[in-house]
């Protein structure tokens, strides 16, 4: 599903500030094809800003950003074809039904034989039953599953997730984690931002610790092995500030 590319995401000395406050400083980051990278850090460490810059929702004040080998400024449109984004908001229209939402996004992404793919996507996140109900009647979990269907309708190579598990019940988290495993198995690449370590982290290949706008440490290993490392990383950060 994904072309053999050395790196799917490359950030070179990326800076970002909002007036006097600095969000990101000198970020060097590479995500390779098929990797599941998780960005960890306290709120306000710059995780979401970094993700928004990669998703081209925000522009860096300095530095180079490349996604799938394409520079974000010149080939923005090709990049968007290869990129899926799931954030806090679901980007769904509450007055439209689930199917109408997906039909709208499939038109925007110019997807052929959309109806078949929409039906398949709805089955995958098992929302077939409420396909023709208006999204405003959906629970947070159902909305998040529909948002995933929307973000992957165009088969992106890179999936960006901004704390997707917040506010999900157990069942929705299970579906989401299972779904992420499947995406990784088909050689997809995931970059996820989170600050809780409970959900969907079975297949993470690399952890990146971010604090006060800088990449402080990168680690490999499963969730258990990095849990205490992450805890004292947070404590350390707090001591330096106070």
């Amino acid at each position, binding site marked *: 599903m994904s072309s053999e590319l050395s790196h799917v995401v490359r950030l070179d000395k990326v800076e970002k500030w909002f007036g006097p406050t600095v969000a990101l400083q000198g970020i060097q980051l590479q995500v390779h094809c098929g990797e599941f990278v998780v960005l960890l850090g306290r709120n306000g460490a710059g995780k979401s800003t970094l993700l*928004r810059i990669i*998703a*081209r*929702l*925000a*522009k860096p004040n300095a530095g180079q950003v490349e996604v799938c080998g394409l520079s974000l400024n010149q080939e923005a*449109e*090709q990049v*968007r*074809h290869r*990129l899926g*984004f799931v*954030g806090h*908001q679901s*980007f*769904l*229209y*509450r*007055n*439209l039904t689930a199917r*109408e939402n997906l039909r*709208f*996004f499939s*038109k*925007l*992404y*110019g997807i052929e034989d959309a109806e078949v793919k929409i039906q398949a996507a709805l089955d995958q996140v098992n929302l077939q039953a409420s396909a023709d109900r*208006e999204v405003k009647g959906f629970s947070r979990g159902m909305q998040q599953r529909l948002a995933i269907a*929307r973000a992957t309708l165009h088969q992106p190579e890179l999936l960006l997730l901004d704390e997707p598990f917040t506010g999900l019940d157990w069942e929705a988290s299970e579906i989401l984690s299972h779904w992420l495993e499947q995406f990784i198995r088909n050689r997809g690449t995931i970059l996820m931002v989170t600050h809780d370590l409970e959900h969907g982290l079975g297949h993470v290949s690399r952890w990146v610790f971010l604090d006060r706008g800088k990449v402080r440490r990168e680690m490999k290993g499963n969730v258990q092995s990095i849990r205490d490392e992450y805890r004292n990383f947070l404590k350390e950060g707090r001591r330096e500030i106070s």
Partner: protein
Amino acid sequence: MKFLNQAGAILWKDLLNEYRTRDALTSMLLFGLLVILTFHFAFEPDSLETQKFAPGLLWTTFIFAGLLGLNRAFASERENEALQGLLLAPVNWGAIFLGKMLANLLFMLLAETAILGCFAIFFNLSLGAKIGWLLLIVPLGTLGFASVGTILAAISMNTRMSDVMLPLLLLPVALPAAIGSVEATAAAFSDPPGAALAFWLKFLVVFDVIFITVPLLLFDFVLEE
């Protein structure tokens, strides 16, 4: 070709969204009726006077009802926090402008036909022969407002007081469209349609062309973060 599909998709979504809620249309229509009511008590026009005032009163109602519609132009994106969803899609942002503008134009025209109807009934205005001309003048004038209005709505939605900001930005800029429309309607209403009618129609066409191309070029800068 993709550009038109995408604009069509946005138009389709807005029409569906409006069909489900119908809040823009109802607010515009109710507002129009309220303005007609106030005109009645403000001027107590007999049919002779209304003939003279009709173009000005009509277009004032159209403009302010249109403003209500334009304020709702990006409401579906704002309320559903879905604007970023649009920006994530590989869409030429000019297509978003075109789709939104056509949707606004359609809503304004729908509301205006209803208001025109009420106007004729309440002020027993004999439109008769003039309907033909109005079918030409009203869309042209409204197109001018819809095009400038859509880009200014996209700009003012980022400010805190967007429903105050939009009229402040739109009315001075769209003044020529208002002058053109009122003058054209006045020319159409005089028994042998006045000579100026052709002139003001041409003026409206020029205004519309300018204020569709300029926003199409500038819209990429409006939606960027």
